[in-house]
């Protein structure tokens, strides 16, 4: 098979994995005879018409797979065309695209062929070849196979910026129904080992997956609720200090398994989960607080979870921009973490008016009913029955 044909097959096969970011790596520059750098923040080099960014060359090494996970296009019982790259082919593609500034690096995953170790070793060798033989200093993310021998993961961590292990389904029951060969226990143990290695390497200033570990959870392929999903994520953030949990709305795939629901979930659900996840990680919300605003443990699709929480807890508002503690400002709909930082810095020197706050956020209209400034009081507005209608965006036309 021609390399372009393989590329078509193996990029298509990888497009369902949402973990595409190139962020979190320490800043690096190419050595004199090397190639590539990382900026810390990550760069999106293009956007596909599905609105997602292209930051990394995201491909599978092969889409042959021994496993039969119902939600996956690459499962062994699927009738898709198959292909496999050699190590050198992946290296050549990565360098060719990188030199033209099309990508930040490589995100390499694979179906499980022959054995977990064989597969993991191939993945590791791609990264090793890029780093060792080509002085490649761009971003490398490897998907690891939880069943692989620990020493292969150790080696992978020497070359990769980030390693990930996909949880795929938030509950053990869901996993055993849809991914019969996978084991929730094995996956979580692998995440635990990874966490221990990352922590230790940081303490000793050794290189091991410096951008940490992440995972992906598929949304809407089984009966798990948003609360189930967020509870799982929260546990992963706490126990294994994961850098990111990616949510991927289960997408219709060709030759779908009969075990899957006939229709994909609304994409808005994935978006709300990302927002809720953000609240967990950056705004000190608890899963319970978020869950308390949902009906049947599903997030409201019409308004974002922070607004939903504020509407449910109107008693806590309005708060005074000039005196409220930072933690409360962070809970005001329409005020992002950056706006809050600016408010906290500015109010040390001055007393803020409505127009001042409006200069610090693009969504002052949304924040106004929850805020008091020197010249603005929402008065009864905060308690009005139609507040939701007044602050909610008119209609979610396009999400993501």
């Amino acid at each position, binding site marked *: 098979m021609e*390399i372009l044909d393989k*590329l*078509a097959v193996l990029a*298509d096969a990888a*497009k*369902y994995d949402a973990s595409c970011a190139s962020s979190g790596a320490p800043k690096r*520059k*190419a050595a*004199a005879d090397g*190639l*590539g*750098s990382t*900026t810390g923040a990550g*760069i999106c080099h*293009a*956007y*596909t*018409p*599905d*609105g997602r960014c292209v930051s990394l060359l*995201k*491909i599978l090494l092969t889409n042959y797979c*021994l*496993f039969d996970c119902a939600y996956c296009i690459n499962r*062994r*019982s699927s009738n898709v065309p198959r292909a496999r790259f050699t190590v050198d082919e992946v290296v050549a593609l990565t360098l*060719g*695209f990188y*030199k*033209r*500034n*099309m990508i930040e690096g490589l995100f390499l995953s694979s179906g499980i062929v*022959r*054995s*977990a*170790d064989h597969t993991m070793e191939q993945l590791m060798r791609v990264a090793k070849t890029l780093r060792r033989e080509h002085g490649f200093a761009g971003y490398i993310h490897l998907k690891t196979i939880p*069943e692989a*021998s620990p*020493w292969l993961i*150790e080696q992978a961590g020497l070359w990769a910026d980030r390693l990930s292990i996909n949880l795929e389904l938030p509950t053990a029951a869901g996993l055993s129904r849809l991914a019969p060969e996978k084991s929730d226990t094995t996956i979580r143990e692998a995440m635990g080992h990874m966490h221990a290695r990352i922590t*230790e*390497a940081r303490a*000793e200033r*050794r290189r091991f997956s410096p951008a940490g570990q992440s995972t992906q959870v598929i949304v809407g392929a089984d009966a798990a609720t948003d609360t189930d999903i967020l509870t799982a994520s929260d546990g992963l953030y706490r126990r294994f200090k994961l850098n990111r949990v990616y949510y991927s709305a289960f997408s*219709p795939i060709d*030759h*779908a398994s009969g075990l899957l629901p*006939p229709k994909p979930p609304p*994409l808005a659900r994935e978006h709300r989960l990302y927002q809720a996840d953000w609240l967990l990680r950056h705004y000190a919300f608890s899963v319970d607080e978020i869950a308390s605003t949902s009906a049947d443990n599903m997030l409201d699709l019409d308004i974002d979870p922070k607004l939903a929480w504020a509407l449910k807890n109107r008693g806590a508002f309005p708060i005074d921009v000039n005196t409220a503690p930072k933690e409360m400002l962070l809970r005001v709909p329409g005020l992002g973490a950056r706006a809050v930082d*600016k*408010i906290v*810095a*500015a109010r*040390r*020197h*001055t007393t803020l008016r409505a127009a001042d*706050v409006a*200069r*610090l956020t693009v969504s002052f209209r949304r924040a106004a009913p929850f805020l008091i400034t020197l010249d603005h009081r929402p008065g009864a507005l905060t308690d009005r029955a139609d507040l939701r209608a007044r602050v909610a965006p008119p209609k979610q*036309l396009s999400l993501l």
Partner: protein
Amino acid sequence: MGVTPVTLGEGADLDGFRRAVRRLIAEARPPDAVVWQTDGTPSLFDGNRGEAGADAPPISLPRAAADLIRLVVCHRDPERYALLYACVWRLLHGEGALLDIASDPLVARLALMEKSVRRDLHKMHAFLRFRRVTDDEDERYVAWFEPEHDILEETADFFVDRFRRMTWSILTPTGSLHWDRETLTVGPPGEKSALPATGAVEAGWSTYYASTFNPARANPSAMLREMPKKYWANMPETNLIPDLLRAAGSRVETLMSNAPAPSRKKDPAKAVARMREDHVRTLADLNAVIAAAEPFVTGGTRAVLGEGPLKPSLAFVGEQPGDQEDVQGRPFVGPAGQILARAMAEAGIDRDACYLTNAVKHFKFEPRGKRRLHKSPTAGEVRHYRWWLDKELDLVAPKLIVALGATAVQALTGKALPIIKTRGPFDFNGRAGFVTVHPSYLLRVPDEAAKREAYAAFVEDLAAAAALARNPTARSA
């Protein structure tokens, strides 16, 4: 006092602005007494214009102000210099914390300008595409880009850091950058027509771009928000977008109407089961893995593997190979190994009947002139090697494991334990063991009498370990 006109070069004339500010501040000109203009001379070529003010004393500004100025001078707004000067004036006249007050109208406006420049930089980093000019070894690349602001020089470091070993040029309508792997040159405006044709890599990229698009999630407005059409001209993949979007609807319909496919493959339950077992099963397999692997410590030219028969009554675990071991590729051949051999003989242990290995498989050292100075592995490094040691001992299956020294104990238990207190019989997570000192310790005991004593104790330990291996139940006796 009349109005002072200041003339700067076109584009981002940071040097000219700096000099002008020094002079204006030295002369105490308030912002409304200054008129800023540009004279059409591109600043790119001339770092030395506006000599006046070159000797005015430098002024010190907060770090954040310096960053703000550097970026805002790149903005194409003709008011940029006036706004920046007003800001500098206020910073120096009683409002030192001005930049903290993001709600101030001037600060807010400058912040928006800075944001716009940053975004432009980011887009240039992202959407600029190099094309290859030459095919020989000496690769040369060219790119064409039309930034919104005068960011060309500001962006140079990014491209140099990233594409250091390539020779490249970046052409824009206002100037150009050229990197020859050593020096960066700023040149005159370029022409888009100088861009070479696209080649196989661009074709590959288009294939990739089309394949990574998921038609079930088509969302062109989200795409346009991040990648407005003005950038499309630089990017070969964008001409695929209309077709991809047009076909998306029908592709999804086909997907959804395709009935679940019955598997054509038979259930490879056996293959999957075998896969699970398919970890290394022999010591030779394991050794092949270790030999091929990267050292986890600095130094080590090769992995020094364990040696000896399977199912021995004793296996000895040392710390790590030393200089001699690294040279010869065999464990315990250096000075410490010779002491061990002697002590074993005195304790009545046949060295050839024992298995000898190390907790860490590579020699960790620091070069000091011609010498290679041994360095102890860290706890984390020891743990890296533990997987191998564990597997190795599983496969070797000795009756008893003798841990020589603290590192070995740490590798076998996962904990740092004091040797003197632990010395004697020990249980290594279910494996029968014995803890004693590392023979290299005997080399380091300073006075002769103490050395003899330590050596005798070591021989005694080895004899006790051998007895324990022969008769495990005698442990408590």
